[in-house]
């Protein structure tokens, strides 16, 4: 008998149908992968199983009994646990306190938790200091805490929502091994991912979701990776370009150089020069520790690194959203260290920030307003806003950059993530003067079609002679787009590889601080 049975599950958010008539069996002791693009409904499905959302139609059965959790508490009671895409740990509490949360008796008994942690460490090799504070842990360690939290209560079903997105290569290996361990003990695992490389290493069966529907469920023995990709994106991946192959991480298929066949202009003079950049956060913790980097005209330099090694801070400083503690940043002869965003823009720097929603656009304003946020004065006549001129200019920009919206007057919030990002790119690449572009995590949360468009834009900017700095946590993305990859580790660049010499292993080793070039 299957452990979990979903039949006819449907979930709508307003007019949008996120899941449409999903029927699926999860067997005991299997690792079942959910594969699909962003927005395919994978996370929604997990959230229904874990009781975060409630279905609008359909039923669930767990171990033969009806299962309709009204909240995570109920799901936990029935032995369903989940590791979320965004960690759900309280940052200023210790590991032990987080583990006691929601499951302890009236009076806290830290000793019991520590004993249980030792058992899990012995059983799965999940080791972590109980008294460590969460905000002092690395991303990989935090995830280990999440998994320990899940396994404490000896669950029946472990749900992992895109757990590998934030991990470095050796941590991914460890995580996949734990999944197998859990399954070996007769528990079931649902693993959400959009990376095929992982599926072929860990899955017993895989279900492909697209636009809220199940396309197919296949056993992994003798499964054809190509056909899985086709099910996932709805078209043949080879015709869609190698970018897609890179984005879904098909093993051995990541091309090192051919994607750049359009041909970079050989890098010219330095457009961005960073020397000995130091940044201490408000708590005095050094986040950047003497980082030096040069980006020339007509080149894309990628920054690889596990999240939390200073790349976010580097992006903030370049955007003028944080002031460096020491060091120099020069763009085209102008010093822009500790300048205001306006001064940085005037120096010819375009910024695609990491946090699109918080920094790059104002969701409540219209697309046209967002496109000309920094240039409001451009469309004023006698001090009054000339809306029709701005509307026209916005329409031209939307056409040039393929921003799909019914009109320039609709709110930014009504656009898909991909179109929002295209609008941000349109704005930043239309700046005048423009000599340098910073793109921080530019494809995060986008679907494959939009990812491809973003890559093409970045390449086109490079071909026009711009210097581009690409900060990304996706190794495949960096390898597909960059002319050169520098690896950041603990606030310093620890190595660099030129196109043609890219290798996952070498970059991965440098990312984890194991090797220097």
């Amino acid at each position: 008998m299957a452990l979990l049975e979903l039949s006819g599950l449907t979930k709508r958010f307003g007019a949008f149908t996120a899941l449409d008539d999903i029927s699926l069996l999860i067997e005991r002791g299997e690792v079942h992968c959910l594969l699909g693009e962003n927005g395919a409904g994978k996370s929604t499905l997990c959230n229904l199983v874990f009781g975060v959302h409630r279905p609008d139609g359909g039923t669930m059965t767990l171990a033969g009994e009806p299962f309709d959790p009204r909240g995570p508490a109920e799901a936990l009671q029935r032995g369903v646990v989940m590791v979320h895409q965004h960690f759900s740990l309280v940052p200023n509490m210790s590991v032990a306190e987080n583990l006691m949360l929601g499951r302890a008796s009236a009076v806290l008994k830290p000793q019991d938790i520590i004993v249980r942690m030792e058992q899990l460490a012995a059983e799965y090799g999940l080791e972590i200091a109980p008294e460590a504070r969460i905000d002092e842990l690395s991303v990989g360690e935090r995830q280990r805490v999440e998994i320990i939290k899940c396994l404490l209560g000896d669950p029946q079903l472990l749900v992992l929502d895109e757990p590998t997105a934030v991990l470095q290569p050796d941590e991914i290996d460890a995580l996949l091994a734990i999944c197998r361990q859990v399954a070996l003990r007769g528990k079931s695992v649902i693993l959400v991912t959009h990376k095929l490389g992982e599926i072929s290493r860990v899955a017993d069966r895989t279900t492909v979701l697209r636009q809220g529907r199940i396309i197919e469920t296949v056993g992994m023995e003798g499964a054809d990776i190509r056909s899985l990709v086709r099910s996932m994106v709805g078209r043949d991946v080879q015709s869609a370009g190698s970018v897609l192959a890179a984005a879904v991480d098909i093993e051995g298929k990541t091309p090192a150089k051919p994607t750049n066949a359009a041909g970079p202009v050989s890098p010219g003079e330095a457009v961005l020069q960073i020397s000995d950049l130091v940044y201490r956060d408000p708590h005095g913790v050094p986040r950047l520790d003497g980082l030096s980097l040069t980006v020339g005209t007509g080149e894309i330099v990628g920054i690889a690194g596990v999240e939390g090694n200073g790349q976010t801070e580097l992006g903030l400083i370049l955007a003028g959203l944080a002031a460096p503690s020491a060091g120099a940043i020069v763009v085209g002869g102008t010093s822009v260290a500790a300048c205001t965003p306006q001064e940085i823009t005037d120096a010819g720097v375009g910024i695609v920030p990491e946090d699109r929603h918080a920094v790059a656009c104002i969701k409540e304003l219209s697309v046209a307003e967002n496109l000309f946020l920094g240039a409001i004065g451009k469309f004023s006549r006698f001090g009054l806003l000339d809306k029709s001129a701005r509307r026209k200019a916005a329409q031209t920009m939307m056409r040039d950059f393929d921003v799909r919206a019914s009109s320039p007057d609709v709110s930014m919030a009504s656009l898909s993530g991909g179109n929002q990002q295209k609008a941000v790119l349109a704005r930043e690449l239309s700046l005048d003067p423009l000599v340098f572009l910073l793109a921080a995590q530019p494809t995060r949360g986008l679907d494959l079609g939009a990812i491809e468009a973003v890559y093409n834009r970045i390449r086109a900017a490079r071909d026009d002679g711009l210097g581009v700095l690409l900060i990304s946590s996706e190794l495949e993305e960096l390898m597909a787009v960059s002319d050169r990859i520098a690896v950041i580790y603990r606030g310093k660049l620890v190595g660099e590889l030129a196109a043609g010499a890219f290798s996952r292993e070498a970059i991965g080793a440098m990312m984890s601080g194991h090797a220097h070039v």
Partner: protein
Amino acid sequence: MIDEQMAVFIGSGLRLAVPIIFAATGEMLSERAGVLNLSLDGMMLMSAFTAALASWATGSPLIGVAAGVLVAMAVAAVQAVLSVTLRANQLVVGIGFNILALGSTTFLYREIFGPLSRDPIPGFAQLNLPWLAHIPVIGPALANQTGLAYVSIVMVVVTWLILKYTSFGLAVRAVGEDPRAADKAGISVAKTRYLGVLYAGILAGFGGAFMSVADSNTFTENMTKGAGYLAITAVIFGGWNPWYTLAACLLFGFATALQFLVPALQLDVPVALLLLLPYLLALVAIAGFVGKSRQPSALTIPFERGG
């Protein structure tokens, strides 16, 4: 002579600090759970009035305190419904309550007590604990307090124990810091916050009742004089830590008591300036400390479950 005046000063400082200690201790726990009760002053005022009324009507100050606490709890319950369930702006709700409390207690006081305002209201006697009285200088001040004053210190200890050693306390801290994480750990964010607000209501009720039936044995219009606001300030000043909050409350109490000490010492300082002192101190405390102590991340932010 000086000794005697110091004893009076310390005694009145402690006495004036008690209502703030009650209110601030409860408020601290509520804020740790993420709900700011700006209505604290209103809860205290309503409780002070109700306690006076019930004590006067029944002749029992104990019944007075019970009635005052119940009314403050009722206000807290409404505050919780508005700010937790209906996700209303906590600050606006609080201001509304304070205006309502001031208006309604003033009106009812004039209606009910108007002609009888000189009637004595039965209150608590001071305990006079001989074993405390022997301590030099502070002994008499510590010994000559009403029972409720000692209860306020006990509540600080209890609150500290709750936060540090119970799973409810852990839930409170988690809910105020990262409600999403707490929710996913299977904790009811709403229930925890309701309990936090009710806890603040109960203690604010004690604080208010203390003013009318233990301290002054009377009710006067707007008798809290912003004690609830001082309590909220004390929580910030105390960095959301029970002991530092207690210290802040004592500081405010003694600052208020200076208005008795300074004239007795025949120093030439305008009394009006002394009356202003605690509020001035509160302002300085907020300006100087608000940036340094880290408030609970989810303070005043309503929780809504999502992806």
